[in-house]
Each structure stands twice: as C-alpha cells, then as structure tokens.
C-alpha cells in the first residue's frame, strides 16, 4: 500500500465514520423541534437603548422556554428594501415567529407577511395588521408621568430640561406627560425643551444638555438614544431621568430613575400562544398594567415619601384610576384641550401636536 492509497483509505474511513455518527444521532422529532423565533433590530444592541431592551426580552424568552424555542436576531438593519430582504430570509429559513422592532419595518413586514401566510409576524410601534401580522407598542407616557413626579419633587430651580429628538406625537406625548407629572406635585414647575433633530448624536445631545443646565435646569431628561444626556448631568452635578434603559452606570449620582421599556411579558405571551397554536394577530398598546413600562431603579437620594407617591400613582395608573391626561387640561397657550373629568382618547394621544401648560415655548410643527 503506497502512501497515496493509504491516505485515501484514511480519508474514506473518516468520511464513513462521520456519516455513521450523523446517522446515529437522534433524528429530530417533529414534535420536539424548537419553534424558531426571529428578531429584526434597527440599530446595534449596544448596552442601553431601544434595541437593547428588545434584546433583553429575547434573552428572557430564551431562558424561559429553553430548548422549546430557538432565537436569532439580526441587528443594524436599515429601514427599507434591506429590511424586506432580511425579514424574508428569516421567514424562508423556517422562522415561524418574527418580531420586527422599528416603525420603519412596517411595510416590509406586511409585504413578507402576505407572502408567507403560515408565519406569524409581530411589528412594534406601527399601525398596520394582516391575517398573520399584529402590532404592539407601549404607553411610554405613563412612565414619563411617574418620572415627572420624581422630578417635580426633586427640583430646586423648578426647571427641568428635556432633550428631544424629533417633534412627532410620540415624543410630544412624553414631554407633556412628564410635565403633567411634575406639575401634579409642583405647580410651579416648568419644562424647557431643546430639539436636537437626531435620534442619535452624542455630541449634540451633550451640547443641548449643557445649554439647558446653563439656563437653570437642575433635572435633565431625554428622548434620544445615547447616554450623553445623563453623562452631562453627572458632569454638571445636576439630576437626570434616563430613558429606554437604566443608565445608572454612566451617572451613578445624577440618575434619579429611568423610564424603561420591558417587552419580556409580551414576548413570553406571544411565544406561548405560538407554541400552543393559539396565536392570533393583535393590536396591543400596553403600559404599566401589562408590565411594558416601568420606572427603573430609584436613586436612594429620592426621599421615601416621594417613592411612595410614585408607587401609589403607578398602582393607580395600572388600575385605571389615574390617567396622565385627564381634564381640565390646557395647552401652554391657554386653550382648553380636555374638559374637567374628560380623559383623552387614544386617537387624540396619537395625534398630540401641542404642549401642555408648563412647557415653555411653542411646538415647532405648527
């Protein structure tokens, strides 16, 4: 046996062994095959922010369902044609349940949903549905209201600074809820808003935060994606309320609390129904009640009485006793927006295009 035939036979034996071991492995049983769950994210997961919170939920369901499911995520997917390709790819590769977590994924998701009628699609923050596509969103403003209570009690200058991204209803809703929360405990409180016209630009967010502090704000909050605002607060020795995620690591002294999103409960429910075969497209707008929103770790400098106040308000919002937008409510030009006792409708909320009393300045879209 020369060298060549020797190596050939070794190779053949190896191949044969491999095949044998592959055959010996237990064939996947149709019943125990895991449910494949795909996630499409618009930005990198990072350490804090919108996508990070969704990924936390993905990890939570992975832990809960163990080998009953198998998850996969694709991050930094641009909204548009690329998104459609990514979503279709997942559907094609047997991902039965697909979460797409950015507003701009709505139309691509819908298109793919129509092409893959047997797959289930869940789209965050949109408004379109199909036979196999539902949407879900969170009432972020409820958390903002609670954070406002803390801010109203903790401010000494009675001025809070709000670094905001774009003047769209979702952001305006947050500003107004925060202001109403603040003024529910501190009628003199004022909120100053600076728009940075970007979801993500740490430099500009920092500049906006510094400006607000120089104009007397002693509590900062933000509706933008980076940690720059809470870091600015830490550096300037003022307080901050973080958004999306707990950012206390970046501002251990400054961060009073964080308004955080939690998708764990919702995702758990959806996955369970998909496993049970009872999944149906739904339109979900959850809040404190469904565990979608919380006010994160409250800094020990916040007095117990204030924490109690927040907890009461939280329980009342959950039970429906309290709504951040109940009349009498005027906008900051004095026009009555809600009659006494009137609760705002969801439709009016989603179209909110005015500042409530207590916010300084004029809303730029008008």
């Amino acid at each position, binding site marked *: 046996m020369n060298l060549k035939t020797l190596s050939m036979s070794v190779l053949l034996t190896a191949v044969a062994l491999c095949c044998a071991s592959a055959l010996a492995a237990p064939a996947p049983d149709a019943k125990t095959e895991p449910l494949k769950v795909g996630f499409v994210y618009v930005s990198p997961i990072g350490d804090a922010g919108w996508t990070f919170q969704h990924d936390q939920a993905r990890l939570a369901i992975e832990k809960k369902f163990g080998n009953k499911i198998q998850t996969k995520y694709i991050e930094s997917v641009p909204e548009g044609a690329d998104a459609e390709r990514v979503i279709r790819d997942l559907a094609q590769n047997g991902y039965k349940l697909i979460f797409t977590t950015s507003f701009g994924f709505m139309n691509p998701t819908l298109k793919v949903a129509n092409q893959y009628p047997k797959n289930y699609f869940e789209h965050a923050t949109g408004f379109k549905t199909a036979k196999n596509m539902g949407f879900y969103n969170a009432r972020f403003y409820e958390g903002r209201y609670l954070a406002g209570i803390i801010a109203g009690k903790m401010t000494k200058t009675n001025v809070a600074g709000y670094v905001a991204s774009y003047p769209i209803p979702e952001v305006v809703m947050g500003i107004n809820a925060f202001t109403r929360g603040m003024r529910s405990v501190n009628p003199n409180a004022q909120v100053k808003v600076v728009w940075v016209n970007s979801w993500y630009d740490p430099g500009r967010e920092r500049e906006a935060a510094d400006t607000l502090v120089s104009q007397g704000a002693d509590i900062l909050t933000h509706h933008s994606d980076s940690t720059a605002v809470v870091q600015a607060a830490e550096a300037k020795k003022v307080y901050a309320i973080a958004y999306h995620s707990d950012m206390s690591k*970046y501002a251990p002294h400054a961060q009073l609390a964080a308004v955080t999103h939690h998708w764990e409960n919702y995702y758990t429910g959806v996955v369970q129904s998909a496993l049970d075969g009872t999944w149906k497209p739904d339109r979900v707008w959850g809040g404190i009640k469904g565990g979608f929103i919380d006010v994160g770790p409250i800094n020990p400098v916040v007095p117990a009485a204030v924490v109690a106040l927040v907890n009461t308000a939280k329980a009342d919002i959950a039970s429906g006793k309290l709504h951040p937008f109940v009349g009498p409510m005027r906008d900051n030009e004095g026009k009555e927006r809600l009659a006494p006792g009137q609760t705002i409708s969801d439709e009016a909320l989603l179209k909110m295009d005015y500042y409530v009393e207590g916010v300084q300045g004029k809303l730029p879209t008008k």
Partner: protein
Amino acid sequence: MDAFVNLIALTLAAGTPLALAALGELVTEKSGVLNLGVEGMMTVGAVAAFIVAVNTHSPWLGIAAGAAAAAVLALVFAFIVLSLMANQVATGLALSLFGIGLASFVGRDYVAKVIDGLPALHLPVLSDLPIVGALFFSYSPIIYLTLALFALTQWVLTRTRAGLIVRAVGESPPAAHAIGLPVIRVRYLCVLFGGLCSGLAGAYLAVAYTPLWAEGMIAGRGWIAVALVVFATWKPWRALAGAYLFGFVTLAQFQVQAWGTAISPQFLSMLPYLATIVVLTLISRNALTVRLNAPVSLGKPFHPGD
C-alpha cells in the same frame, strides 16, 4: 456674565473636534493631497482612544492611541494614493467607509464600558479666579493643545522653510521635484499629520467631550471639517474661526430653543451650516485670495518619474 462665559466655554468645547480635524485636512490639502477619509479616521481615532482608555485607565494614553491609530489609517491611504497612485477621491471615500466599519467591529465589546473622562484643566489659584479663571484656565487640555497646534501650523506654513516646501509641493509638484524636493515624502508626512489631527479629534470626542464609545458617534463631523477647509480658503485661522463659529451657532440655537421661542428647530439646526458657509464665503469672496491659497495640484497624483 455667567451665561456669556458659559457660552464661550461650550463653544470652545463643541468647536474643538471640528477645528482639529480641519487643521489636519488643511495641511494635507496644502501638500496637494485630498483626503476625504477624515470621518473614518476620526471614528477609528475615537474607538482606539476609548479602548486604550478603558484598558489602561489613562485618558492620556487613550488620546495618544487614538491619534496613532488614525495615523496608521492615514498611512494606508498615503500608500494607496501616493505610492500606488490611486484616485484620491475614491480612496478617501473608501477610507471613510472602511474606518467607520472597522471601528464598529473592533468596538463591539466596548459599547458597554464606562470611563473617567479626561478632566478639565485645574490650576491652583488661576482656575479659581472669578470669570478670568472660567474664561481662560478651566478648559479641557485638548482645547489648549488645539490652539497651540493652530499657532504652530500657521507659523510653520507661512514663516518657515518647511512650510514653503509644503506649499511648493502643493502648488507645483513637477517644479518642486525639479529643484530636488522629495515630493512624495513631503506628501506622506502631510497626510500623516492629517491622520494624527483627525485621530486626536476623534479621541477628544470619545475620551473628553462625551466619554463613551458608540457606533456613529462622530455623526458627520469629519465631513464638516473637510468642508470647513475649503470655505476657509486653506487658511488656518479662518478654519479655526469657522470651526468655533459652527460650534457657537449650534449652541446659540440651543439657547434660543431653551428660551422657548417659536422658531422651528429644523430651521435652527440648519443655521450652523448656513451661518458658517455664509460667513466664510463672505470673508473669502475675493477670487484672487481663493486662487492664491488653493493648492493648484490638489487631488492630482504625481509621479516623480514623469
């Protein structure tokens, strides 16, 4: 008075990354090389500075690493366009894309990290003086470094033989070559200087200004720096003024917003660009100055053997 001092301080802090990057690009362009990779070099500078600052706990080492990393990237660019004589515009654009991608890749595990930023200067007595202390002696050290670099560059470019050589190489490489100047070597050094400055600018952002690393944190500042150089007609002081003007208008429009005026923020956020272009165009409107200052061979490859 406090508000004024504050505005000055914030302006200097906001304008510094632009000023540094513009200075580097200005010297690069003066030697006749157009490097559009500033955004990429800044991003790489930022991520390298942050990674080293995290691991060594020394913001200064981080800043040095940022400058060095961007310089390495600049060397790659120089090799491609000066030794291999590739198209400078295309290579520069590629460098930007590559730098941004590379930074996201190597920075993946550092998004979550927290560092102590580079502290601002604090001199005993001097920094504590009322107003004067805040106005002159309390900035980030990088800001003083930037001003010193500008003074030095201005002096070297206009008053020294080295500056003359750089300008000669940028004006007419064949003539410079004919009188025995090492055209390619001079251009290598100028590109390298550009890389160092861009890296410093990125490092300042990641280690001093907003001590964090995240993808996209440079947010277009590199492109603004490239534009500043042109609008400043390749004069260092004008580039510096342009950078600080840009920073000033950015902050002024935030101030105006925080006062609660009814001007649309979309319009206001356009203002820094508009104001900088208008002002620099006005001060540089003399066509002769533009012609005299623009490096004639900008963007054209030079082969010493031709």
